[in-house]
């Protein structure tokens, strides 16, 4: 346990040290921006910037990769690509719109449109059934109407 904490601390130190080493403000902003577009894989299910664990080793490791890449002059897509190579697709906050993962993006839209078609169809069928249905009832006789009015007063009072 103690040893593990120590290793974590070393990582934090390493990351902080790397961070401290001459990043221009512009580079720092870039690192921050990329941190919003890559997941922390410690199990927190948030992005690197949002990970709630202050001394998260995973976050530090990933950030170190980003910093190294940024220093090497890579732009954001390239850094992300590098992260995906190193850690897998799960580092992306949402699935890439390619191959099977494309269905993730398409299906909700298909569902929405399909639902619309069904809803419009239902209203249409309701309307048709109405037109084909029995014609208007003849006016009810006055006695009945009087009884209805009386009952209505009784119920609603």
């Amino acid at each position, binding site marked *: 346990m103690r040893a593990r904490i120590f290793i974590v601390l070393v990582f934090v130190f390493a990351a902080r040290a790397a961070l401290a080493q001459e990043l221009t403000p512009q580079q720092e902003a870039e690192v921050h921006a990329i941190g919003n577009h890559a997941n922390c894989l410690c199990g927190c299910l948030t992005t690197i910037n949002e990970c709630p664990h202050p001394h998260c080793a995973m976050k530090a490791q990933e950030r170190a990769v980003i910093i190294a890449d940024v220093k090497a002059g890579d732009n954001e897509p390239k850094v992300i690509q590098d992260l995906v190579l190193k850690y897998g697709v799960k580092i992306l906050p949402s699935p890439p719109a390619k191959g099977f993962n494309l269905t993730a993006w398409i299906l909700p839209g298909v569902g929405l449109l399909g639902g619309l078609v069904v809803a419009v169809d239902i209203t249409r069928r309701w309307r048709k059934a109405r037109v084909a249905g029995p014609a*208007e*009832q003849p*006016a*009810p006789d006055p006695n*009945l*109407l009087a*009884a*209805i009015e009386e*009952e*209505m007063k009784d*119920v*609603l009072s």
Partner: protein
Amino acid sequence: MLLGIAILITAGLAFLVVMPLLAAEGGSERALPIDVTPQADLKRRRAVIYENIQDLDFEHKAGKISGEDYQAMRQHYLSEAAQLMLASEESEAMNDRDAYIEREVAACRARSRPPQESYVCPKCGYENAVPVKFCGECGARIAGKK
């Protein structure tokens, strides 16, 4: 100690659960009463329409519906209510015919039995087993308590 209490509680509850099964079948508790009779259902359906009419009247007064739509829809609701009212009257008439026969039979029976034993409904002739204000079968008032 605690275990004993737990088992005792369980046994007590089990006894309460079994007790109704041991009671003799009979009385007005015999079968599950109908919650809403067909007659009452017709009236409830009319009540829904009345509520709709009330809403419609209100929306018209509030100026949300034009006069033409309002008249047409009100007419529509009224004729729906009229149909339900007719259905009500028909089933009532049927009940009356059945009730007449049952009443005669009941009267026959009543003559051959001491009257205090049962609470015969004056309308449908059903013999209620316990003192009741309303008939358990048709819901009519039992005479003398108007």
